[in-house]
Protein backbone atom coordinates (compact mmCIF):
# COMPACT_ATOMS: atom_id res chain seq x y z
CA UNK A 1 0.00 0.00 0.00
CA UNK A 2 2.79 2.39 0.90
CA UNK A 3 4.44 1.52 -2.34
CA UNK A 4 1.24 2.33 -4.21
CA UNK A 5 0.77 5.69 -2.46
CA UNK A 6 4.38 6.52 -3.07
CA UNK A 7 3.98 5.78 -6.76
CA UNK A 8 0.78 7.82 -6.87
CA UNK A 9 2.42 10.89 -5.41
CA UNK A 10 5.36 10.59 -7.78
CA UNK A 11 2.90 10.13 -10.60
CA UNK A 12 1.00 13.26 -9.69
CA UNK A 13 4.22 15.25 -9.60
CA UNK A 14 5.35 14.11 -13.06
CA UNK A 15 1.79 14.33 -14.30
CA UNK A 16 1.59 17.94 -13.18
CA UNK A 17 4.64 18.75 -15.29
CA UNK A 18 3.14 17.05 -18.32
CA UNK A 19 -0.12 18.84 -17.67
CA UNK A 20 1.62 22.24 -17.72
CA UNK A 21 3.26 21.45 -21.04
CA UNK A 22 0.10 19.98 -22.51
CA UNK A 23 -1.84 23.05 -21.40
CA UNK A 24 0.44 25.27 -23.41
CA UNK A 25 -0.08 23.03 -26.39
CA UNK A 26 -3.86 23.14 -26.00
CA UNK A 27 -3.99 26.90 -25.45
CA UNK A 28 -2.08 27.52 -28.68
CA UNK A 29 -4.16 24.98 -30.57
CA UNK A 30 -7.47 26.30 -29.29
CA UNK A 31 -6.80 29.93 -29.97
CA UNK A 32 -4.98 29.75 -33.28
CA UNK A 33 -5.47 26.17 -34.52
CA UNK A 34 -1.74 25.70 -34.73
CA UNK A 35 -0.31 22.36 -33.66
CA UNK A 36 2.79 23.52 -31.87
CA UNK A 37 5.53 20.96 -31.52
CA UNK A 38 7.84 23.60 -30.12
CA UNK A 39 6.83 23.10 -26.48
CA UNK A 40 9.87 21.04 -25.51
CA UNK A 41 12.20 23.53 -27.18
CA UNK A 42 10.55 26.41 -25.33
CA UNK A 43 10.89 24.44 -22.13
CA UNK A 44 14.63 23.80 -22.50
CA UNK A 45 15.28 27.41 -23.35
CA UNK A 46 13.06 28.60 -20.50
CA UNK A 47 14.79 26.33 -18.00
CA UNK A 48 18.12 27.68 -19.18
CA UNK A 49 17.08 31.27 -18.52
CA UNK A 50 16.17 30.38 -14.97
CA UNK A 51 19.52 28.61 -14.52
CA UNK A 52 21.26 31.64 -15.95
CA UNK A 53 19.49 34.16 -13.78
CA UNK A 54 19.79 32.14 -10.60
CA UNK A 55 23.32 30.70 -10.83
CA UNK A 56 25.23 32.93 -13.21
CA UNK A 57 23.72 36.25 -12.20
CA UNK A 58 23.17 34.84 -8.69
CA UNK A 59 19.73 36.26 -8.23
CA UNK A 60 17.25 34.91 -5.74
CA UNK A 61 15.63 31.75 -7.14
CA UNK A 62 12.13 33.19 -7.17
CA UNK A 63 13.25 36.36 -8.91
CA UNK A 64 15.13 34.20 -11.40
CA UNK A 65 12.03 32.09 -11.98
CA UNK A 66 9.89 35.16 -12.55
CA UNK A 67 12.42 36.73 -14.92
CA UNK A 68 12.77 33.43 -16.75
CA UNK A 69 9.02 33.16 -17.23
CA UNK A 70 8.79 36.74 -18.47
CA UNK A 71 11.71 36.33 -20.86
CA UNK A 72 10.28 33.08 -22.23
CA UNK A 73 6.88 34.70 -22.68
CA UNK A 74 8.54 37.48 -24.66
CA UNK A 75 10.33 34.90 -26.79
CA UNK A 76 6.97 33.23 -27.35
CA UNK A 77 5.50 36.51 -28.55
CA UNK A 78 8.45 37.12 -30.86
CA UNK A 79 8.14 33.62 -32.32
CA UNK A 80 4.44 34.13 -32.93
CA UNK A 81 4.94 37.52 -34.55
CA UNK A 82 7.87 36.61 -36.73
CA UNK A 83 7.20 33.03 -37.73
CA UNK A 84 3.56 32.12 -37.26
CA UNK A 85 1.84 35.34 -38.23
CA UNK A 86 3.01 35.05 -41.85
CA UNK A 87 1.59 31.52 -41.88
CA UNK A 88 -1.97 32.56 -41.09
CA UNK A 89 -4.25 30.97 -43.64
CA UNK A 90 -1.65 28.43 -44.76
CA UNK A 91 -2.45 24.71 -44.44
CA UNK A 92 -2.30 23.38 -40.88
CA UNK A 93 0.22 20.79 -42.03
CA UNK A 94 2.75 23.39 -43.18
CA UNK A 95 2.40 25.27 -39.93
CA UNK A 96 2.91 22.09 -37.92
CA UNK A 97 6.10 21.32 -39.87
CA UNK A 98 7.26 24.85 -39.20
CA UNK A 99 6.87 24.33 -35.47
CA UNK A 100 8.84 21.07 -35.68
CA UNK A 101 11.67 23.00 -37.30
CA UNK A 102 11.31 25.67 -34.68
CA UNK A 103 11.54 23.04 -31.96
CA UNK A 104 14.78 21.70 -33.42
CA UNK A 105 16.23 25.20 -33.56
CA UNK A 106 15.16 26.05 -30.00
CA UNK A 107 16.46 22.72 -28.70
CA UNK A 108 19.85 23.18 -30.35
CA UNK A 109 20.14 26.70 -28.98
CA UNK A 110 19.10 25.44 -25.56
CA UNK A 111 21.61 22.56 -25.60
CA UNK A 112 24.34 24.90 -26.66
CA UNK A 113 23.58 27.37 -23.89
CA UNK A 114 23.25 24.71 -21.21
CA UNK A 115 26.37 22.86 -22.27
CA UNK A 116 27.31 19.28 -21.54
CA UNK A 117 27.23 19.34 -17.77
CA UNK A 118 24.19 19.27 -15.54
CA UNK A 119 23.37 22.77 -14.37
CA UNK A 120 21.92 23.40 -10.96
CA UNK A 121 18.86 25.62 -10.74
CA UNK A 122 19.63 26.91 -7.28
CA UNK A 123 16.13 25.95 -6.26
CA UNK A 124 15.20 25.83 -2.57
CA UNK A 125 13.98 22.22 -2.66
CA UNK A 126 17.13 20.34 -3.59
CA UNK A 127 16.95 16.63 -2.93
CA UNK A 128 15.47 16.90 0.52
CA UNK A 129 12.57 14.69 1.45
CA UNK A 130 9.61 14.94 3.76
CA UNK A 131 8.65 11.97 5.87
CA UNK A 132 4.89 11.47 6.07
CA UNK A 133 4.22 8.32 8.05
CA UNK A 134 5.69 5.57 5.93
CA UNK A 135 5.80 7.77 2.89
CA UNK A 136 8.94 9.49 1.72
CA UNK A 137 8.05 12.41 -0.47
CA UNK A 138 10.63 14.65 -2.01
CA UNK A 139 10.05 18.33 -1.33
CA UNK A 140 10.47 18.99 -5.02
CA UNK A 141 7.51 16.75 -5.85
CA UNK A 142 5.35 18.50 -3.28
CA UNK A 143 6.39 21.87 -4.63
CA UNK A 144 5.59 20.71 -8.16
CA UNK A 145 2.11 19.58 -7.22
CA UNK A 146 1.30 22.67 -5.16
CA UNK A 147 2.66 25.13 -7.70
CA UNK A 148 0.93 23.42 -10.58
CA UNK A 149 -2.38 23.60 -8.78
CA UNK A 150 -1.82 27.31 -8.17
CA UNK A 151 -0.70 28.00 -11.74
CA UNK A 152 -3.50 26.01 -13.36
CA UNK A 153 -6.06 27.49 -10.97
CA UNK A 154 -5.05 31.04 -11.72
CA UNK A 155 -5.00 30.29 -15.43
CA UNK A 156 -8.54 28.94 -15.28
CA UNK A 157 -9.62 31.99 -13.28
CA UNK A 158 -7.98 34.18 -15.92
CA UNK A 159 -9.97 32.48 -18.67
CA UNK A 160 -13.17 32.62 -16.70
CA UNK A 161 -13.25 36.05 -15.16
CA UNK A 162 -10.99 38.48 -16.98
CA UNK A 163 -11.86 40.50 -20.05
CA UNK A 164 -8.92 39.21 -22.04
CA UNK A 165 -9.44 35.62 -20.93
CA UNK A 166 -13.00 35.79 -22.15
CA UNK A 167 -11.78 37.29 -25.41
CA UNK A 168 -9.37 34.37 -25.80
CA UNK A 169 -12.16 31.87 -25.25
CA UNK A 170 -14.37 33.72 -27.72
CA UNK A 171 -11.58 33.63 -30.29
CA UNK A 172 -11.22 29.90 -29.75
CA UNK A 173 -14.90 29.39 -30.55
CA UNK A 174 -15.29 31.68 -33.55
CA UNK A 175 -12.53 33.92 -34.83
CA UNK A 176 -14.60 35.97 -37.23
CA UNK A 177 -17.26 36.76 -34.67
CA UNK A 178 -14.56 37.64 -32.19
CA UNK A 179 -13.07 40.06 -34.71
CA UNK A 180 -16.48 41.59 -35.31
CA UNK A 181 -16.75 42.34 -31.58
CA UNK A 182 -13.52 44.29 -31.73
CA UNK A 183 -11.32 41.62 -30.15
CA UNK A 184 -7.72 41.98 -31.34
CA UNK A 185 -7.31 38.39 -32.49
CA UNK A 186 -3.65 38.89 -33.41
CA UNK A 187 -2.95 39.90 -29.83
CA UNK A 188 -4.86 36.85 -28.61
CA UNK A 189 -2.51 34.61 -30.60
CA UNK A 190 0.52 36.37 -29.21
CA UNK A 191 -0.75 36.03 -25.64
CA UNK A 192 -1.47 32.34 -26.24
CA UNK A 193 2.16 31.83 -27.20
CA UNK A 194 3.33 33.87 -24.24
CA UNK A 195 1.27 31.75 -21.86
CA UNK A 196 2.45 28.53 -23.48
CA UNK A 197 6.08 29.58 -23.24
CA UNK A 198 5.62 30.65 -19.62
CA UNK A 199 4.01 27.33 -18.73
CA UNK A 200 6.82 25.47 -20.51
CA UNK A 201 9.37 27.36 -18.41
CA UNK A 202 7.62 26.43 -15.18
CA UNK A 203 7.49 22.81 -16.34
CA UNK A 204 11.18 22.90 -17.22
CA UNK A 205 12.09 24.27 -13.82
CA UNK A 206 10.23 21.49 -12.03
CA UNK A 207 11.72 18.85 -14.30
CA UNK A 208 15.17 20.17 -13.50
CA UNK A 209 14.60 21.00 -9.85
CA UNK A 210 16.68 18.95 -7.43
CA UNK A 211 18.57 16.91 -9.98
CA UNK A 212 19.54 19.85 -12.17
CA UNK A 213 18.88 20.94 -15.71
CA UNK A 214 20.51 18.96 -18.47
CA UNK A 215 19.85 18.65 -22.14
CA UNK A 216 18.04 15.38 -21.42
CA UNK A 217 14.92 17.03 -20.02
CA UNK A 218 13.76 17.76 -23.56
CA UNK A 219 13.19 14.07 -24.16
CA UNK A 220 10.74 13.91 -21.31
CA UNK A 221 8.89 16.99 -22.47
CA UNK A 222 7.99 15.26 -25.71
CA UNK A 223 5.73 13.02 -23.68
CA UNK A 224 3.46 15.96 -22.99
CA UNK A 225 2.20 15.56 -26.52
CA UNK A 226 0.51 12.21 -25.82
CA UNK A 227 -0.95 13.89 -22.73
CA UNK A 228 -2.58 16.61 -24.84
CA UNK A 229 -3.76 14.05 -27.38
CA UNK A 230 -5.32 11.83 -24.72
CA UNK A 231 -7.20 14.79 -23.26
CA UNK A 232 -8.37 15.79 -26.69
CA UNK A 233 -6.25 18.60 -28.17
CA UNK A 234 -8.89 21.29 -27.72
CA UNK A 235 -9.80 20.79 -24.09
CA UNK A 236 -8.15 22.50 -21.15
CA UNK A 237 -9.48 20.04 -18.55
CA UNK A 238 -8.43 17.36 -21.00
CA UNK A 239 -4.82 18.55 -20.94
CA UNK A 240 -4.77 18.45 -17.15
CA UNK A 241 -6.36 15.00 -16.92
CA UNK A 242 -4.23 13.72 -19.80
CA UNK A 243 -1.07 14.94 -18.12
CA UNK A 244 -2.00 13.28 -14.85
CA UNK A 245 -2.90 10.00 -16.59
CA UNK A 246 0.47 9.88 -18.34
CA UNK A 247 2.29 10.81 -15.15
CA UNK A 248 0.52 8.14 -13.09
CA UNK A 249 0.93 5.51 -15.82
CA UNK A 250 4.66 6.16 -15.93
CA UNK A 251 5.02 6.11 -12.21
CA UNK A 252 3.09 2.85 -11.79
CA UNK A 253 5.08 1.29 -14.60
CA UNK A 254 8.34 2.24 -12.92
CA UNK A 255 7.13 0.73 -9.66
CA UNK A 256 5.39 -2.43 -10.78
CA UNK A 257 6.54 -3.38 -14.24
CA UNK A 258 9.72 -5.16 -13.17
CA UNK A 259 7.59 -7.26 -10.85
CA UNK A 260 4.69 -8.21 -13.11
CA UNK A 261 5.72 -7.51 -16.68
CA UNK A 262 9.44 -8.01 -16.54
CA UNK A 263 9.56 -9.36 -20.10
CA UNK A 264 8.95 -5.83 -21.40
CA UNK A 265 12.47 -5.01 -20.38
CA UNK A 266 13.96 -2.07 -18.59
CA UNK A 267 12.83 1.50 -19.05
CA UNK A 268 9.49 0.52 -20.46
CA UNK A 269 8.15 3.52 -18.53
CA UNK A 270 9.53 5.81 -21.22
CA UNK A 271 7.25 4.14 -23.76
CA UNK A 272 4.15 3.77 -21.64
CA UNK A 273 2.86 7.26 -22.55
CA UNK A 274 2.54 6.20 -26.15
CA UNK A 275 0.91 2.89 -25.26
CA UNK A 276 -1.69 4.76 -23.21
CA UNK A 277 -2.26 7.21 -26.04
CA UNK A 278 -2.71 4.32 -28.46
CA UNK A 279 -5.27 2.64 -26.21
CA UNK A 280 -7.22 5.83 -25.58
CA UNK A 281 -7.33 6.70 -29.25
CA UNK A 282 -8.63 3.22 -30.07
CA UNK A 283 -11.65 3.85 -27.87
CA UNK A 284 -12.07 7.60 -28.24
CA UNK A 285 -10.35 8.90 -31.37
CA UNK A 286 -11.12 12.50 -30.38
CA UNK A 287 -9.60 12.14 -26.91
CA UNK A 288 -11.27 11.99 -23.54
CA UNK A 289 -12.66 15.53 -23.50
CA UNK A 290 -12.13 16.48 -27.12
CA UNK A 291 -14.84 17.77 -29.40
CA UNK A 292 -16.19 14.96 -31.48
CA UNK A 293 -15.75 15.72 -35.15
CA UNK A 294 -19.03 15.54 -36.96
CA UNK A 295 -18.33 14.24 -40.43
CA UNK A 296 -20.94 13.30 -42.95
CA UNK A 297 -19.99 10.31 -45.01
Amino acid at each position, binding site marked *: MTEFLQATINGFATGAIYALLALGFVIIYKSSEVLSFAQSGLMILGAFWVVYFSTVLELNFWVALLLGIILSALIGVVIERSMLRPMV*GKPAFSVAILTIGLNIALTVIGFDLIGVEIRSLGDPWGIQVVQMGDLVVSRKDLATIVSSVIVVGSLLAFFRYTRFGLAMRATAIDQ*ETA*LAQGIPVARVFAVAWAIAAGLATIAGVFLGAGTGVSAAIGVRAIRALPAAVIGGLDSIPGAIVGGLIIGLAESYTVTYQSEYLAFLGQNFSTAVAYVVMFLVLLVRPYGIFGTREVVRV
Partner: protein
Amino acid sequence: MLEVANLEVVYHDVVLVLRGISFRVPDGKIVALLGANGAGKTTVLRAISGLLDVHHGDITKGEVRVDGTPTHKLTPTAIVGTGVTQVMEGRRIFAEFTVEENLRVGAHSSPGERTDNLSRVFDLFPVLKERRKHTAGYLSGGEQQMLAMGRGLMSNPRFLLLDEPSLGLAPLLVQQIRDLIVEINSQGTAILLVEQNATMALSIAEHGFIMETGKIVMDKPADELMRNEDVQEFYLGLGGAGTERKSFRDIKHYKRRKRWLS
Protein backbone atom coordinates in the same frame (compact mmCIF):
# COMPACT_ATOMS: atom_id res chain seq x y z
CA MET B 1 -21.88 59.88 -41.53
CA LEU B 2 -20.80 56.48 -42.80
CA GLU B 3 -19.84 56.63 -46.44
CA VAL B 4 -18.97 53.99 -48.97
CA ALA B 5 -17.39 55.41 -52.09
CA ASN B 6 -16.74 53.51 -55.32
CA LEU B 7 -16.06 50.32 -53.48
CA GLU B 8 -14.70 47.42 -55.47
CA VAL B 9 -14.06 44.08 -53.76
CA VAL B 10 -12.36 41.00 -55.14
CA TYR B 11 -12.38 37.57 -53.51
CA HIS B 12 -9.42 35.23 -53.93
CA ASP B 13 -7.86 37.77 -56.32
CA VAL B 14 -10.25 36.77 -59.10
CA VAL B 15 -13.91 36.99 -58.15
CA LEU B 16 -15.12 40.53 -58.58
CA VAL B 17 -18.01 40.84 -56.16
CA LEU B 18 -18.57 44.56 -55.74
CA ARG B 19 -18.18 46.76 -58.78
CA GLY B 20 -18.14 50.30 -57.60
CA ILE B 21 -20.66 50.71 -54.81
CA SER B 22 -21.37 54.11 -53.34
CA PHE B 23 -23.86 55.07 -50.68
CA ARG B 24 -24.05 56.85 -47.38
CA VAL B 25 -25.66 56.24 -44.01
CA PRO B 26 -26.41 59.55 -42.30
CA ASP B 27 -26.14 59.82 -38.51
CA GLY B 28 -29.16 58.53 -36.67
CA LYS B 29 -31.01 57.18 -39.71
CA ILE B 30 -32.09 53.73 -40.84
CA VAL B 31 -30.90 52.78 -44.30
CA ALA B 32 -31.91 49.54 -45.98
CA LEU B 33 -29.72 47.57 -48.37
CA LEU B 34 -31.79 45.10 -50.36
CA GLY B 35 -31.00 42.55 -52.99
CA ALA B 36 -31.21 38.93 -53.99
CA ASN B 37 -28.86 36.20 -52.83
CA GLY B 38 -25.34 36.72 -54.06
CA ALA B 39 -25.83 40.38 -54.88
CA GLY B 40 -22.97 41.29 -52.55
CA LYS B 41 -24.82 42.74 -49.58
CA THR B 42 -22.86 40.85 -46.97
CA THR B 43 -19.64 41.72 -48.77
CA VAL B 44 -20.49 45.39 -48.41
CA LEU B 45 -20.84 44.90 -44.66
CA ARG B 46 -17.60 42.93 -44.45
CA ALA B 47 -15.80 45.66 -46.31
CA ILE B 48 -17.13 48.24 -43.87
CA SER B 49 -16.27 46.27 -40.73
CA GLY B 50 -12.90 44.98 -41.98
CA LEU B 51 -13.78 41.31 -42.05
CA LEU B 52 -12.83 40.72 -45.68
CA ASP B 53 -9.45 39.27 -44.76
CA VAL B 54 -11.05 36.28 -43.11
CA HIS B 55 -12.71 35.47 -46.43
CA HIS B 56 -9.67 36.19 -48.60
CA GLY B 57 -11.31 39.32 -49.94
CA ASP B 58 -9.60 42.58 -50.81
CA ILE B 59 -10.74 46.10 -51.42
CA THR B 60 -9.19 46.92 -54.78
CA LYS B 61 -10.73 50.34 -55.27
CA GLY B 62 -12.70 52.88 -53.36
CA GLU B 63 -13.01 53.89 -49.76
CA VAL B 64 -15.07 53.49 -46.64
CA ARG B 65 -15.22 56.65 -44.60
CA VAL B 66 -16.53 57.41 -41.15
CA ASP B 67 -17.05 61.16 -40.77
CA GLY B 68 -14.73 61.70 -43.69
CA THR B 69 -11.85 59.63 -42.30
CA PRO B 70 -11.01 56.54 -44.36
CA THR B 71 -11.39 53.35 -42.31
CA HIS B 72 -11.04 50.61 -44.90
CA LYS B 73 -7.36 50.06 -44.10
CA LEU B 74 -7.91 49.72 -40.35
CA THR B 75 -8.08 46.45 -38.44
CA PRO B 76 -11.54 45.22 -37.40
CA THR B 77 -10.64 46.13 -33.82
CA ALA B 78 -9.88 49.72 -34.77
CA ILE B 79 -13.05 49.92 -36.85
CA VAL B 80 -15.15 48.89 -33.86
CA GLY B 81 -13.31 51.67 -32.06
CA THR B 82 -14.57 54.21 -34.61
CA GLY B 83 -18.13 53.31 -33.67
CA VAL B 84 -19.08 50.85 -36.41
CA THR B 85 -20.21 47.40 -35.30
CA GLN B 86 -21.54 44.58 -37.42
CA VAL B 87 -24.07 42.02 -36.25
CA MET B 88 -23.35 39.10 -38.50
CA GLU B 89 -25.79 37.01 -40.42
CA GLY B 90 -26.96 33.85 -38.72
CA ARG B 91 -26.58 35.36 -35.24
CA ARG B 92 -23.19 33.71 -34.56
CA ILE B 93 -23.58 33.83 -30.80
CA PHE B 94 -21.04 32.01 -28.65
CA ALA B 95 -23.22 29.00 -27.91
CA GLU B 96 -21.20 27.63 -25.00
CA PHE B 97 -21.10 30.97 -23.21
CA THR B 98 -23.81 32.32 -20.98
CA VAL B 99 -25.91 35.25 -22.15
CA GLU B 100 -23.96 37.58 -19.93
CA GLU B 101 -20.58 36.31 -21.14
CA ASN B 102 -21.69 36.89 -24.72
CA LEU B 103 -22.53 40.46 -23.82
CA ARG B 104 -19.22 40.88 -22.02
CA VAL B 105 -17.41 39.78 -25.18
CA GLY B 106 -19.33 42.47 -27.04
CA ALA B 107 -18.07 45.00 -24.53
CA HIS B 108 -14.44 44.11 -25.17
CA SER B 109 -13.64 47.34 -26.96
CA SER B 110 -15.22 49.63 -24.36
CA PRO B 111 -14.67 48.10 -20.93
CA GLY B 112 -15.16 51.42 -19.19
CA GLU B 113 -18.79 51.79 -20.20
CA ARG B 114 -19.68 48.15 -19.73
CA THR B 115 -22.13 48.60 -16.89
CA ASP B 116 -23.97 51.43 -18.65
CA ASN B 117 -24.20 49.56 -21.91
CA LEU B 118 -25.26 46.41 -20.14
CA SER B 119 -28.16 48.10 -18.42
CA ARG B 120 -29.17 49.72 -21.71
CA VAL B 121 -29.15 46.34 -23.46
CA PHE B 122 -31.13 44.77 -20.62
CA ASP B 123 -33.68 47.58 -20.88
CA LEU B 124 -34.04 46.98 -24.60
CA PHE B 125 -34.19 43.21 -24.27
CA PRO B 126 -35.68 42.33 -20.88
CA VAL B 127 -35.70 38.67 -21.84
CA LEU B 128 -31.91 38.67 -21.91
CA LYS B 129 -31.85 39.97 -18.36
CA GLU B 130 -34.09 37.12 -17.28
CA ARG B 131 -31.76 34.61 -18.88
CA ARG B 132 -28.43 36.21 -18.20
CA LYS B 133 -27.05 33.07 -16.56
CA HIS B 134 -28.41 30.67 -19.19
CA THR B 135 -26.28 29.01 -21.81
CA ALA B 136 -26.75 31.06 -24.96
CA GLY B 137 -27.00 28.03 -27.23
CA TYR B 138 -30.26 27.01 -25.58
CA LEU B 139 -32.07 30.28 -26.27
CA SER B 140 -34.78 30.37 -28.92
CA GLY B 141 -34.02 31.76 -32.35
CA GLY B 142 -35.59 35.12 -31.61
CA GLU B 143 -33.77 35.41 -28.31
CA GLN B 144 -30.50 34.53 -29.99
CA GLN B 145 -31.06 37.29 -32.52
CA MET B 146 -31.72 39.70 -29.67
CA LEU B 147 -28.55 38.50 -27.99
CA ALA B 148 -26.57 39.06 -31.18
CA MET B 149 -27.96 42.57 -31.49
CA GLY B 150 -27.41 43.24 -27.81
CA ARG B 151 -23.83 42.03 -28.09
CA GLY B 152 -23.31 44.45 -30.97
CA LEU B 153 -24.75 47.28 -28.89
CA MET B 154 -22.33 46.59 -26.05
CA SER B 155 -19.66 48.54 -27.91
CA ASN B 156 -22.09 51.47 -27.99
CA PRO B 157 -21.78 51.92 -31.76
CA ARG B 158 -22.88 54.98 -33.69
CA PHE B 159 -23.46 52.79 -36.72
CA LEU B 160 -24.92 49.34 -36.30
CA LEU B 161 -24.73 47.06 -39.33
CA LEU B 162 -27.45 44.42 -39.16
CA ASP B 163 -27.12 41.49 -41.55
CA GLU B 164 -30.49 39.81 -42.04
CA PRO B 165 -31.83 40.05 -38.51
CA SER B 166 -35.11 38.48 -39.64
CA LEU B 167 -33.40 35.34 -40.94
CA GLY B 168 -35.29 32.22 -39.98
CA LEU B 169 -37.71 33.91 -37.61
CA ALA B 170 -41.48 33.56 -37.44
CA PRO B 171 -43.54 36.56 -38.70
CA LEU B 172 -44.45 37.71 -35.20
CA LEU B 173 -40.83 37.65 -34.13
CA VAL B 174 -39.86 39.54 -37.27
CA GLN B 175 -42.24 42.26 -36.16
CA GLN B 176 -40.74 42.27 -32.71
CA ILE B 177 -37.23 42.55 -34.13
CA ARG B 178 -38.42 45.35 -36.40
CA ASP B 179 -39.81 47.28 -33.44
CA LEU B 180 -36.55 46.75 -31.58
CA ILE B 181 -34.57 48.12 -34.51
CA VAL B 182 -36.76 51.23 -34.47
CA GLU B 183 -36.23 51.50 -30.72
CA ILE B 184 -32.45 51.18 -31.02
CA ASN B 185 -32.49 53.78 -33.77
CA SER B 186 -34.56 56.17 -31.70
CA GLN B 187 -31.82 56.07 -29.06
CA GLY B 188 -29.48 57.60 -31.59
CA THR B 189 -27.78 54.70 -33.34
CA ALA B 190 -27.78 54.81 -37.13
CA ILE B 191 -28.59 51.49 -38.72
CA LEU B 192 -27.59 49.91 -41.99
CA LEU B 193 -30.12 47.13 -42.44
CA VAL B 194 -29.34 44.37 -44.90
CA GLU B 195 -32.42 42.33 -45.59
CA GLN B 196 -34.13 39.82 -47.81
CA ASN B 197 -37.38 40.73 -46.16
CA ALA B 198 -37.89 43.94 -48.13
CA THR B 199 -41.34 44.68 -46.73
CA MET B 200 -39.99 44.75 -43.22
CA ALA B 201 -36.87 46.71 -44.12
CA LEU B 202 -38.61 49.36 -46.20
CA SER B 203 -41.34 49.83 -43.61
CA ILE B 204 -38.83 51.28 -41.15
CA ALA B 205 -36.04 52.61 -43.33
CA GLU B 206 -35.68 56.17 -44.40
CA HIS B 207 -33.77 55.38 -47.52
CA GLY B 208 -33.19 52.20 -49.50
CA PHE B 209 -30.68 50.81 -51.93
CA ILE B 210 -31.20 47.85 -54.17
CA MET B 211 -28.18 45.80 -55.18
CA GLU B 212 -27.83 43.42 -58.03
CA THR B 213 -24.65 41.50 -58.93
CA GLY B 214 -22.35 43.89 -57.21
CA LYS B 215 -23.93 47.17 -58.21
CA ILE B 216 -26.49 49.49 -56.75
CA VAL B 217 -29.29 49.59 -59.25
CA MET B 218 -31.75 51.72 -57.34
CA ASP B 219 -31.28 54.41 -54.77
CA LYS B 220 -34.45 56.06 -53.50
CA PRO B 221 -36.25 57.08 -50.34
CA ALA B 222 -37.92 54.05 -48.83
CA ASP B 223 -41.52 55.12 -49.52
CA GLU B 224 -40.74 55.70 -53.17
CA LEU B 225 -39.16 52.26 -53.38
CA MET B 226 -42.28 50.82 -51.78
CA ARG B 227 -44.42 52.36 -54.51
CA ASN B 228 -42.09 51.41 -57.33
CA GLU B 229 -43.71 48.86 -59.58
CA ASP B 230 -40.61 46.76 -60.15
CA VAL B 231 -39.74 46.66 -56.49
CA GLN B 232 -43.28 45.63 -55.68
CA GLU B 233 -43.09 42.85 -58.18
CA PHE B 234 -39.64 41.48 -57.43
CA TYR B 235 -39.16 42.19 -53.76
CA LEU B 236 -42.50 42.76 -52.15
CA GLY B 237 -44.34 39.97 -53.97
CA LEU B 238 -47.27 42.17 -54.80
CA GLY B 239 -47.57 40.94 -58.38
CA GLY B 240 -46.75 44.25 -60.01
CA ALA B 241 -49.27 45.70 -62.43
CA GLY B 242 -51.75 42.87 -62.66
CA THR B 243 -52.88 40.81 -59.73
CA GLU B 244 -54.06 37.77 -61.68
CA ARG B 245 -51.84 34.71 -61.88
CA LYS B 246 -48.93 34.80 -64.24
CA SER B 247 -48.52 32.64 -67.26
CA PHE B 248 -45.16 31.26 -68.30
CA ARG B 249 -44.87 33.94 -70.92
CA ASP B 250 -45.00 36.57 -68.22
CA ILE B 251 -42.17 34.93 -66.40
CA LYS B 252 -40.00 35.38 -69.47
CA HIS B 253 -41.15 38.93 -69.50
CA TYR B 254 -40.14 39.16 -65.87
CA LYS B 255 -36.63 38.16 -66.77
CA ARG B 256 -36.48 40.69 -69.54
CA ARG B 257 -37.77 43.42 -67.43
CA LYS B 258 -35.46 42.78 -64.52
CA ARG B 259 -32.84 45.10 -65.92
CA TRP B 260 -33.01 48.24 -63.94
CA LEU B 261 -32.72 51.38 -65.87
CA SER B 262 -32.55 53.92 -63.14
